[in-house]
């Protein structure tokens, strides 16, 4: 479980979002929604430990994230980023093996146990047949699954993903989100991701975080619909939101 206590996030002097008090439960897939520039990436970067909080705390299973060493943090939070990684000759199994880095010895050699964990992670995301392929030969969807497997191999209670469904085709978007939902439920991890695929997010996720006008509203799709927050976030002069079907329609 992660709890954000009086957390203010931002860069240098400039606060992007202030005084956040929220919790992320284990075993749930939570989607972070918001317009570009609303502060989604800032929250994710702070939760990953890349960016120090301006004030307040992030507690991971009761421990202050910012007081953890780099090595301890690598066993608490794993990430999947948007930046494209190009490494010649790197196989899927090698990439997933990188997830074991926090646990390996001085030269990073994988033990038998590590290799078993890597194999298991690759099976969990359903790309066992691709293990020996190099990552530059994968489709975007397969690549995203390989990085998700890397995060699983890192064996952290929390996985953060920055727009994992961007650049994917429609089918890959749905299957990636479904996979993450399944993994969150099966492994009891917190999977927290930002996305612009709002329609899929409201239909699939366990909980939504909506960043709007400097505030964060959280809750299930049902509770946010009831309170009208979802409608206020989604609806504008060009788009209408169907509360029953959880779909968007262009006016």
């Amino acid at each position: 479980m992660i709890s954000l206590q009086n957390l203010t996030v931002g860069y240098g002097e400039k606060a992007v979002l202030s005084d956040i008090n929220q919790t992320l439960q284990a075993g749930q897939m939570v989607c972070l929604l918001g317009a570009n520039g609303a502060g989604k990436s800032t929250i994710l970067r702070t939760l990953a430990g890349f960016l120090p909080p301006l004030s307040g705390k992030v507690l991971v299973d009761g421990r202050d994230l910012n007081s953890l060493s780099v090595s301890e943090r690598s066993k608490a939070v794993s990430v999947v980023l948007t930046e494209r990684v190009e490494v010649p000759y790197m196989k899927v199994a090698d990439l997933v093996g990188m997830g074991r880095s926090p646990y390996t010895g001085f030269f990073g050699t994988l033990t038998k146990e590590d290799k078993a964990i890597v194999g298991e992670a690759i099976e969990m995301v359903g790309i066992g047949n691709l293990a020996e392929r190099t990552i530059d030969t994968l489709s975007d969807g397969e690549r995203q699954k390989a990085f998700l497997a890397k995060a699983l191999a890192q064996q952290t209670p929390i996985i953060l993903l920055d727009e994992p469904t961007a650049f994917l085709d429609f089918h890959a978007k749905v299957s990636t989100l479904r996979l993450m939902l399944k993994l969150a439920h099966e492994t009891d991890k917190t999977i927290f991701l930002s996305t612009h695929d709002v329609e899929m997010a409201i239909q699939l996720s366990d909980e939504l975080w909506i960043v709007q006008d400097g505030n964060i509203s959280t809750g299930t799709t049902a509770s946010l619909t009831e309170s009208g927050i979802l409608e206020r976030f989604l609806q504008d002069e060009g788009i209408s939101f169907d509360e029953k079907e959880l779909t968007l329609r262009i006016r």
Partner: protein
Amino acid sequence: MKDKYKLKLLTLLMVLLSIANVLWGSLDIPVGDVWQILCGNEVEGHPAWSIIVLQGRVPQMLTALLTGTALGTCGLLLQTAFRNPLAGPSILGIDSGANLGVAIVLLLLGGTASIGNLALGGHLLVVVAAMVGALAIMALLMILSRLLRSQVMLLITGVIISYVTGSIIQLLNYSATEQGVHSFVIWGMGNFASVGIERLPVFCALSCLGLLLALLLIKPLDALLLGDRYAENLGIRIGRVRQMLLLVTGLLTATTTAFCGPISFIGLAVPHLARLALGTSYHRTLMPATMLIGANLALACNLLSTLPRDGSIIPISVITPLIGAPVVLHVILKQKNN
């Protein structure tokens, strides 16, 4: 298993090339006599041969071996650190920083002494100056690499740095003595013979130190393949690793440049040859392979430099671009096709 086999093969090749470097030189000495000299005997009627073999060829072979190893390793570290397949000590201008340091010492301070007969103290000064120059450029590149998004921009910056240091060196030439200019020009041709038996221990110590430190970076370098953010999330202390990279690449470039002159393309080409040979990006196997291929390439270049059988030698800086440039072209073409 397969990688281990290849590494063994490369080691064997290195041993053979090392022996060849001692057996063949610009002066024809019968193989049997070289063997006699190595066994501690003197060849009758040719007392100079002992000096040529023991104080010339053996140190020169060791120098070539270590320089190739150091430059290849340096190129590998730079390519991973900047995530740029075309990074290398010469193209990024790091060795031109070392050049400038050497030029200041040779042209302004030690103008009357050629590098070959500088006293050990003077020579250390050259090394320190090269080190300061290399580290300064490396630090500048590290700062710029955070500001510059594009990999090409960083390479262009390196080329610009080389031009600027080149200009400063030209300007220094005006205020230097003729002899100073001469010794700097000779040094600039690159030569594995300039270390010699007296300075060999210092050269060995400095380059081995750099190589050992490089081996300590294997795990963080693997993580850096994925980029800074991923590496940090995998438990790597980026700041400290960057400082170590700065130190190691600076030390290796400065040592080789100060002792042997600027030697281009080995640093850039060798890591690619190693990747091609092993089909991996992992430093656990890639770094040893890079070291071995670097040593082999430098030893081969040294052999080639003695080809004119009249006692003269071809400068190393003439040979390495001929070997390195095709490799670099191959890398560029492969990139374009992706």
